[in-house]
């Protein structure tokens, strides 16, 4: 009932607008006027700006995802073209029976959650340090954010060297503390955490920038009020300031999780090949390996759809949240 009234109002407005324009120009039926009447007065004229790019994105993103879903239902392998006449879910049942797939899914999940949490924590710490009225603020901020401007391919080279067994900085520091060397890349139980550490190094600056914007948006009175109440600095941040960073935390988390899902470039470059170190295989690396090294196109597409659904599970609620707050 309410909805009907609303639409009625909307179209009423539009008709008035459209009518005026139309009367001045031509009489009789015109598809342009009809479209404008339906969608709003500028619809047709503005479409020259947004429609071609939108179609390009529609084709390359959404068209490709639907196509990918179709391929995942075929048995397409090797060279040639997929046969779309026989569609079934065979590739998905194969994935569930493949221990490599299950391991990769688990690793993806661990990397996603672990990386996001440690990066948020470090980023928040950095933002608070930077926000304490320090000198050379710009210099500190610029250097903390610097790794973010580097390619995964470049940072993978640095960290391959940092984690080197004999001469890497990490093992040198550890042995100087009297501990034994650790095989960071070679040990399947450790490598995922090493990768997480390297990714944290690269993206903590990003979390810092987001949190810093959030901190700067909090009115000074909130700090003052907490001081007057006699709260310690720790208490003030914990009770008063950090709860107000909810928005920053949510948007930073979503972006970080998407970065973690994309960690393919880093793992590929770490070893210079499709096969990441044992214990560090994630869905992104498995998908590309199945497709481009093993030519199992249909199976790779099924892995890709799994990854896509995981992303949708994270991004969907976020976009809905932003939409409801009118931020879209």
């Amino acid at each position, binding site marked *: 009932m309410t909805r009907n009234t609303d639409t009625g109002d909307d179209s009423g407005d539009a008709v008035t607008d459209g009518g005026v324009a139309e009367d001045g120009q031509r009489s009789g039926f015109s598809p342009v006027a009809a479209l404008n009447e339906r969608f*709003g007065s500028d619809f047709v004229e503005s479409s020259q*700006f947004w429609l*071609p790019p*939108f179609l390009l994105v529609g084709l390359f993103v*959404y068209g490709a995802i639907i196509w990918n879903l179709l391929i995942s239902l075929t048995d397409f392998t090797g060279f040639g073209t997929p046969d779309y006449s026989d569609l079934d879910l065979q590739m998905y049942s194969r994935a569930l029976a493949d221990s490599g797939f299950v391991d990769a899914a688990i690793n993806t999940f661990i990397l996603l959650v672990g990386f996001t949490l440690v990066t948020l924590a470090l980023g928040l710490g950095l933002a608070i340090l930077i926000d304490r009225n320090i000198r050379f603020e710009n210099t*500190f901020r610029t250097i903390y954010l610097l790794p973010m401007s580097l390619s995964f391919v470049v940072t993978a080279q640095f960290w391959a060297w*940092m984690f080197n067994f004999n001469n890497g900085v990490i093992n040198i520091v550890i042995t100087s503390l009297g501990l034994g060397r650790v095989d960071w890349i070679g040990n399947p139980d450790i490598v995922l955490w090493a990768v997480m550490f390297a990714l944290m190094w690269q993206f903590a600056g990003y979390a810092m920038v987001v949190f810093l914007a959030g901190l700067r948006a909090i009115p000074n009175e909130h700090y003052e009020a907490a001081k007057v109440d006699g709260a310690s600095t720790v208490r003030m941040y914990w009770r008063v300031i950090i709860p107000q960073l909810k928005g920053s935390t949510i948007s930073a988390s979503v972006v970080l999780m998407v970065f973690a899902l994309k960690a393919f470039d880093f793992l590929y470059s770490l070893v210079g090949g499709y096969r990441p170190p044992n214990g560090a295989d994630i869905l992104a690396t498995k998908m590309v390996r199945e497709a481009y090294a093993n030519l199992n196109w249909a199976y*790779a597409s099924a892995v890709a759809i799994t990854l896509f659904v995981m992303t949708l599970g994270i991004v969907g609620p976020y976009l809905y949240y932003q*939409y409801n707050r009118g931020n879209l």
Partner: protein
Amino acid sequence: MSNDARTDGGTVTEAGPGASAGLLSGLDAYRVLLYLGLLGMLSFFLIPIESGLVTSFKTASGVSGSLPFAPPTGGTFTFEKWRAAFDALGRGLINSALYAIPATVISALLGSFTAYGLTQSNWKQKYKAPVLALLVAGVFIPYQAVLVPLSQFWSMIPLQEWLGFLWALGINNDYASVIELIITHVAYGLPICTVLFRSYYKNMSDEMIEAARLDGASIRRIYRRIVLPLSGPMFAVVLIYQFTQIWNDLLFTLVLVQTESSAAAPIVLILAGLGTSLEGQDFALRMAGAFIAALPTLAVYIAFGEEFAEGVAT
């Protein structure tokens, strides 16, 4: 994290306020600790880069015989690795620029068009919202979900035939992949460019645009005369962000160019396989290569750090 820092702070304040107060009057122990924390983090972020830089100037015996973060000394200093890395990567620098620069410019322009058409024009929010939602969601798509169709698509397009006139001029036909990379990067970069421009256009003052509308200016004219000239700062942000993203991306180059032996191989693709062989890894070479590949984005970052920060924060 922050808790830890504060707790530490407390202990040290009690231990040595006298010493620091005497040395640096005006700075209390809390400030000293704050700066120590800041400097500690500074070294955390710089050590991997510093270690890479000094290693790139070492000979093989220097790499294995000295501390990874110590500068090369006398006999172990060499430019050889930089020269070798440049020989391997030099063509990649040019190839990367060939697609990264056009793709950056085109995606920024189209992003500005799209955001303008969806922000400063009057059509119903009810219909605009799904178009916007699809564009925003496009920012977060994991590219793995489109890779197989992307390969299929480009293998179906007879780009080699269409560009026959270029090959007739003596250009290596591997360079067809440059065109593929430009179009692909534009398509997948458009969503983020649109989102960045939209956040800017939403906060732009309507007065001038309303006035121009009352004078009967067309949408195209308003864009050219009012919106585009005011978009300068956002173009800086988007161009810098997009250039960094496109230059740094490995996945699409791996799928579309496939092999580093291609004449059109981008720098990241060559770097990913550099210095790894059956005999072991040449870390000095890998470090020198990493720096050469990072130079363009580092230069952009150092020159336009503010715009870069704005781009990532939005």
